[in-house]
């Protein structure tokens, strides 16, 4: 499907192989017929944009999830891991992006949780501590196995997480899901030395990261996923960052007609000094200022964890600890509540459709009516005829493909479910639409439909905020783009300034690794 300018991966015996993996979740196809080979003694990099299916593939390899179709071979034999313990018994370990630790327990207890060393039916804490410090000293001397977990710095906790997988004597495959995202520079160096060490021992590393320079530096083979499909693979020595970005975002151009808006671009919402403190110090949203105008689609781009979701959630009133001022319409708001914000015409299409957007036990019609049903009553009684007119109108307006609105919402495809969530907001007479990753996990046709809807809302004089992580989408849909990095706004681009390179550059600014400055240089290569 892609023209590959790099040579394919060498013909070497793989230690682990995924063949024709398909994974379905209710409403989404996470992976579609994906092949992936893992070579021993190499760093096998897996990249793709948020939602491309990397984490799902990892979970299948590590035994956390089971594929809907396809098989996994380990050392040439088909394996069916039922859980991570089985996988680790076969020598497959995983280090998660989020730490899975028990903060109140000691380092050694954490490392041996679930596989305690037992003597006469009692946990042998001394032997555990000894074995733990052997492994820890190899990684980073100075972590006491008897220390309570919560007293360690995040970077050290990450090291413990890695040490956990190295307890296994027969480690063959180690999966690392964004291991550097919470490490400091020195800790990253420690980790890279460790990876070299593991490679020398013939252990296969599967490495997931968004930091492209890292991949070029330590990767051996690269596989790129996009929308749940494998689009390219190559050896790192043959490629550069430009090639990776091209393949990640794809060439297919997304052209969305920007419908004209004739009215005045009056400010709809002004946000001043918005902050959301982070647990353990620092800010998730760091003194953010911006204005949203009528008739514009305002993009907010950033990497995962940049604070985009938290920003829109705070504006909606989901985080009580958020501070700052907001002017919505002509009303000054300091402590927003969800109900209040909806009454003022602000809606949020949440990032996680299943968790925050839909009531799975209800019908399509009931989901559409969730917010607006009080409007379709006479003397407190719901009027079915009014509801029906409104629901049918929304279905037609949003182009939701349904055979019967009385069916359960879960009978719809992901794209149509998303349209229901948006339809719900439209029926609430919204003026400010905040859409958090509205295109995630849905098919291309539905994506285009949703972007056209966004443009239409803007053309009707509303304001649309589009939180996205797919460059191509942001570039083709938005009038103006704010870039967030580590809680701060690092760029405000409009018109021709909105280019993929500029977005990538700004999204890496303000990161503590400080390597961001090189990014643009690499793209120019």
């Amino acid at each position, binding site marked *: 499907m892609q023209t590959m300018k790099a040579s394919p991966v060498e013909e070497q015996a793989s230690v682990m192989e995924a063949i024709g993996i398909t994974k379905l979740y209710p409403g989404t196809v996470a992976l579609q017929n994906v092949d992936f080979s893992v070579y021993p003694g190499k760093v096998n990099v897996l990249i793709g944009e948020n939602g491309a299916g990397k984490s799902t593939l990892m979970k299948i390899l590590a035994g956390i999830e089971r594929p809907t179709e396809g098989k996994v071979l380990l050392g040439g034999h088909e394996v069916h891991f039922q859980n991570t313990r089985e996988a680790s018994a076969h020598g497959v370990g995983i280090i998660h992006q989020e730490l899975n630790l028990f903060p109140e327990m000691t380092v050694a207890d954490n490392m041996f949780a679930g596989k305690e060393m037992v003597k006469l039916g009692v946990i042998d804490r001394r032997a555990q501590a000894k074995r733990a410090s052997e492994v820890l000293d190899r990684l980073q001397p100075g972590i006491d196995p008897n220390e309570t977990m919560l007293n360690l710095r995040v970077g050290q906790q990450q090291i413990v997480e890695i040490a956990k997988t190295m307890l296994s004597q027969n480690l063959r495959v180690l999966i690392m899901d964004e291991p550097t995202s919470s490490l400091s520079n020195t800790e990253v160096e420690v980790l890279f030395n460790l990876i070299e060490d593991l490679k020398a021992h013939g252990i296969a590393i599967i490495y997931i990261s968004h930091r492209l320079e890292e991949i070029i530096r330590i990767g051996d083979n690269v596989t790129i996923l996009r929308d749940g499909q494998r689009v390219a693979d190559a050896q790192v020595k043959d490629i550069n960052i430009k090639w990776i970005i091209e393949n990640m975002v794809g060439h297919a151009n997304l052209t969305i007609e920007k419908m004209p808006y004739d009215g005045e671009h009056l400010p709809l919402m002004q946000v001043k000094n918005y902050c959301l403190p982070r647990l353990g110090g620092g800010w998730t949203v760091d003194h953010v200022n911006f204005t949203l105008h009528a008739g514009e689609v305002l993009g907010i781009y950033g990497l995962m964890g940049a604070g985009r979701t938290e920003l829109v959630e705070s504006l909606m009133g989901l985080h009580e600890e958020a501070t700052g001022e907001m002017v919505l319409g002509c009303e000054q708001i300091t402590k927003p509540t969800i109900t209040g914000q909806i009454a003022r015409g602000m809606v949020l299409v*949440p990032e996680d459709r299943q*968790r925050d957007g839909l*009531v799975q*036990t*209800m019908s399509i019609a009931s989901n559409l009516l*969730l917010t607006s049903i009080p409007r379709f009553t006479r003397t407190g009684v719901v009027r079915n005829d009014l509801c029906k007119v409104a629901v049918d109108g929304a279905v037609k307006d949003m182009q939701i493909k349904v055979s019967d609105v009385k069916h359960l919402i879960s009978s*719809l495809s992901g794209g149509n479910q998303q349209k229901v969530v948006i339809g719900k907001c439209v029926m609430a007479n919204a003026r400010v639409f905040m859409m958090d990753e509205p295109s995630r996990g849905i098919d291309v046709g539905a994506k285009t439909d949703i972007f056209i809807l966004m443009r239409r809302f803007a053309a009707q004089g509303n304001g649309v905020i589009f939180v996205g992580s797919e460059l191509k989408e942001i570039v083709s849909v938005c009038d103006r783009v704010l870039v967030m990095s580590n809680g701060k706004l690092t760029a405000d681009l409009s018109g021709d300034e909105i280019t993929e390179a500029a977005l990538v550059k700004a999204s890496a600014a303000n990161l503590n690794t400080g390597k961001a400055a090189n990014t643009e240089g690499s793209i120019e290569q």
Partner: protein
Amino acid sequence: MNSIKMQNAQRSKPSLGMLLLKGRTFIALLILLIYFSFRAPNFTQWGSVVLMVKHASIYGLLALGMTMVIITGGIDLSVGAVVGFTGMIAGGLMLQGFRLPWVAGTIYPNVPMILLMVFALAVFVGFCSGQLIARLRVPAFIATLGAMYICRGAAMLRSGGATFPNLFGDAAKGNLGFDLIGSGSIPGIDVPYSIIIFIVMALVSAFIMKKTPLGNQIYAVGGNERAAALSGIKTQNVKVFVYMFSAFLAAVSGIIMTSQLRAAHPANGESWEMNAIASVVLGGTSMSGGVGSIGGTIIGILVITVLNDGMIMMGVSSFWQMVIKGVVIIVAVVIDLVQKDLQKKAALTARMK
């Protein structure tokens, strides 16, 4: 395209097996009715039928409120205790009135006043449980367990554990007619008031669930509280309401019970909450919330009552009755889970095509 295809697949599916699975509680009710009418003497006589429906009404009031509570994803263990507590308060007001220490006198409220005071008190109990659950996020099980002990204890304290007997009312006190609530019936057609009250309450509950925005919001809160909140539903208010309504219905049940017995005993209603929960679950309401209906609960109530009274009429030992009831409840829930698994599987395979 894809979705349309799969819905067609779903629609053409309802096989006989699935239909039988879905209507299982109703079918169970029919089987029980047929079985007992052959095996239990007097089962089909008008008197027995009225008696059974009367029993069903008293238990059923609790189950109606419980249905709403369980649909929001909660549970109300306090309803049985509220039955006892409200009965004792009503009985106390009938016999001892309302003492006013500063004028050294006693006021005897009339029956409507008594009802009003008792209902207000019960609603307040529900309000407190609801606040604990909705605002302080105390687990519903714990909050209502606490409320259960408090109400039961208060019922005992009211009389020191004794019964308030002979609640016929007194013309001198101006509170005649209390006993009519439970034992009176519509003249001419022999239908007791208690059954009428139950039918009215069932209609009110079904109306709330089906015809008001509140009903929709109750389903939404139980189905996905986060999504409900983000849709602008005041989830806390919805939760507080269901506990208030549940306590109110428990008070109605308590009054009917007290009036029928013409005596208030503090242990009245003990373990009735379990009967109510069993009826709700038999009626197809999901304990995890979001799914269920008043209609299903009514069938559930009838199954439990017919099973209970039928076994009594057949002379089955009360120990065996308990065992059989337990088995029936577990089997019902297991079938429910099996059916849901089958449906989910059918939906996913349909999507694969």
